[in-house]
């Protein structure tokens, strides 16, 4: 049994790691990592813009964005992927690579979810912080940047981590539109071996688990460092303040 795993890894590690590259497109774990990282990197700023649009006093920003967020949150990700897969080439008239379609879909989908968290974070601060910033002469954007968002985003860290972890998991759905990622590579391996699906997909599961777990770990330690810095040099309050955040993140 153990021998099976070792043999599979020995025979197919390069395929699992980088797909067909350099003879074909980059795939495997490398592509999964790139896709996840890009999706997270874009979804984060997009979610802030979406949240600001939803809180805007201008209806022409607020209404369409509210509709987009509701639709996106109310539809299975798989539907969204298929829509984008068929609709984007129709609109653009170009042959858009499936990787790009998957990236756009993930950014919209995770951006919509994250924007609700950002919005809640901003609203929960109350009017007082904005009033104080305005009274000191900050404009809206300046108040957002220096007063509101630093606090809202800090309070959001646990939710952000969980969204990022689910982004990594969601990249697996790229399989249905043939994005050459780790899942795609694993199913290629499985097609060649035919007799060992359990072993192949267990390896796959372990790799995803390690990925998600290490992201949670890194994010947790970043969070702790911020909490310590914010509590100041004489941080009598640190344990009490840091504890609730930590419990939430550990449930992921």
């Amino acid at each position: 049994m153990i021998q099976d795993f070792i043999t599979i890894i020995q025979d197919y590690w390069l395929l699992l790691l980088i797909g067909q590259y350099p003879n074909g497109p980059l795939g495997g774990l490398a592509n999964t990592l790139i896709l996840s990282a890009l999706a997270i990197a874009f979804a984060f700023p997009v979610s802030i813009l979406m949240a600001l649009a939803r809180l805007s006093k201008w209806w022409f920003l607020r209404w369409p964005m509210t509709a987009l967020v509701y639709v996106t949150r109310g539809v299975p990700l798989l539907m969204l992927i298929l829509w984008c897969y068929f609709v984007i080439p129709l609109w653009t008239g170009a042959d858009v690579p499936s990787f790009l379609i998957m990236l756009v879909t993930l950014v919209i989908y995770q951006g919509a979810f994250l924007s609700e968290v950002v919005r809640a974070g901003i609203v929960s601060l109350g009017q007082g912080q904005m009033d104080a910033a305005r009274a000191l002469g900050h404009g809206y954007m300046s108040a957002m940047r220096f007063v509101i968002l630093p606090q809202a985003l800090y309070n959001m860290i646990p939710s952000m981590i969980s969204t990022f972890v689910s982004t990594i998991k969601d990249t697996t759905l790229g399989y249905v539109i043939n994005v050459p990622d780790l899942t795609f590579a694993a199913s290629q391996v499985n097609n060649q071996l035919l007799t060992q699906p359990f072993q192949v997909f267990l390896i796959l599961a372990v790799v995803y688990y390690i990925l998600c777990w290490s992201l949670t770990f890194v994010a947790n330690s970043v969070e702790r460092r911020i909490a310590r810095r914010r509590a100041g040099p004489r941080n009598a309050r640190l344990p009490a303040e840091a504890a609730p955040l930590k419990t939430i993140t550990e449930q992921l």
Partner: protein
Amino acid sequence: MSTSVSEPQAAQAIRIADVCKNYGDYQVLKNINAEVARGEVVVICGPSGSGKSTLIRTVNRLEEINSGGISFEGQNIHAPMRGSELNKLRSRIGFVFQSFNLFPHLSVVENVSMSPIRVKGVAPDVAHDKALKLLDRVGLADKANSYPGQLSGGQQQRVAIARALAMEPPVMLFDEPTSALDPEMVGEVLSVMKSLAAEGMTMLCVTHEMGFARDVADRIWFIDAGEILETAPPEEFFKNPRHPRAQRFLADLRH
């Protein structure tokens, strides 16, 4: 002070003219007319819900008004204007809130130096030194590197005053700065306000501290149900208030 104002400097720091404000059908401010002279300390008092907070928040346009105008150093702050212009005017009006509203993610000294750096473009080291001086002035030099969450209410409010002063405003507004404080902390905040008044700061304060009003104010505005019913020097106001509702208000305070 600014030298760029081309108009002749008005004698009044603040002039409130025919200000009306509604929340839906409910009229909170009814035709308010009043003035604050340069260097004057005015205390606004009146029963709860009479519109004191609303009035003082219209002075730096944290609240909009329905009609009338409020001029600050000769400029109508409620005139249509660009956002940047309004921000510039606001930055010259200090505001102290009942609930302090310090920025909890910044240290005390950062709370005080942030806006001079980000709004006025003061060099960070200059703003930092200035902030330390202001903190020393409100008796909190040793708390510069603490965070707001580590301070008592009275200390937080003194930081809030230092933060407002850091923008070097010619006028300071206070909205019940001591109402959220435990009784033993009221004194430390009032004494900072007294020293400001003694230095000639123009101040408009909503407060229930009648001792402060008596000792420090040049004039009292009594407001009830959205109207200024009486304006008088404190000795006159406390000894023989003219308006029946002012008489009742003072009688209620004493009991």
